[in-house]
């Protein structure tokens, strides 16, 4: 039986932050669903202008990057700093892929004159995805900072709370997208 601990991995401070972020996203998701119920036809019509293939690539990219982060944590637990940094770098690359694909999607919509004020569906679509988009950037910055420190030998097999903290934040970014993807792109 594994020894269980009282606290989730990483610094407790990041978990307070994660809880706050998750509450905001939960509120946004619920707002989306209830507003959709009031404007069913509008939401169903404009949902079809979204590209599910792009969203698929992005979901796969985020899950893969999350997996890489898990490997990075495993690596540092085994004391391998360089391998930890490499896994983190790979995770950041997958994050970058997400940003590129998402930007292509935005480019498509914006070139058709879509803005936050076009209609309620696009208001939610842009708000939710852009808010998440910024979280991806933020997460990449955090991972980069952790990777640099790992590369410089700042963590050990015993002391690596920083890696777990960054990892927890990144998984949160993934987690949000896991709900966002079916809700905005698929459910109708």
């Amino acid at each position, binding site marked *: 039986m594994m020894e269980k*601990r*009282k*606290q989730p991995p*990483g*610094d*407790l*401070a*990041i978990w*307070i*932050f994660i809880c706050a972020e998750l509450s905001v996203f939960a509120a946004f998701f619920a707002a989306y669903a209830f507003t959709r119920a009031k404007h069913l036809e509008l939401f169903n019509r404009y949902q079809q202008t979204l590209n599910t293939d792009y969203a698929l690539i992005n979901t796969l990219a985020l899950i893969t990057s999350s997996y890489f982060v898990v490997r990075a944590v495993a690596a540092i637990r085994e004391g391998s700093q360089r391998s930890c940094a490499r896994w983190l770098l790979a995770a950041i690359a997958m994050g970058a892929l997400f940003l590129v694909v998402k930007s292509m999607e935005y480019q498509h919509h914006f070139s058709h004159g879509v*803005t*936050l*004020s076009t209609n309620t569906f696009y208001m939610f679509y842009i708000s939710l995805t*852009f*808010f998440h988009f*910024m979280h991806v950037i*933020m997460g990449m910055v*955090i991972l980069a900072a952790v990777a640099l420190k790992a590369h410089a030998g700042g963590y050990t097999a015993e002391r690596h*709370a920083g890696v777990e*903290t960054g990892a927890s934040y990144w998984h949160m970014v993934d987690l949000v997208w896991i709900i966002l993807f079916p809700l905005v792109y698929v459910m109708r």
Partner: protein
Amino acid sequence: MSETFTKSMARNIFYGGSVFFFLLFLALTFASHQDFPSRDNHEALTETVAKGKRIWETHDCIGCHTLLGEGAYFAPELGNVYERFGNSTEAIKAFIKSRPVDGVPGRRSMPQFNLSDEELEQVAQFLKYASGIKTANNWPPNIKG
């Protein structure tokens, strides 16, 4: 594994979070600016209106009234007063002009500002311009303001 809740992480979250949400605020401000031209009634923003805004400001009208719901709550909302007065700047001017110098016994009363005809026209035009601003859901809820 011992408890970790470090001051340095709390600090990082403070700095990181503040910068993050300030940037987001700037992004939403940018998006707002894209929308202003379609709602802010700038077509009606003539020199007369601009002067009217100065009259509005230099008589501290906001110290009693609300304008689009902001200000003091002592006197009626003026964001839609142009409509409430039957889409008439003349009615607004007549009202301002006719305020008794010594007030109304026991009642609230607007001061007599002794505005010239030109100034009256300017402030009335300003209020007409304000009523043309497209507020969300056509706020206020009804003509009473």
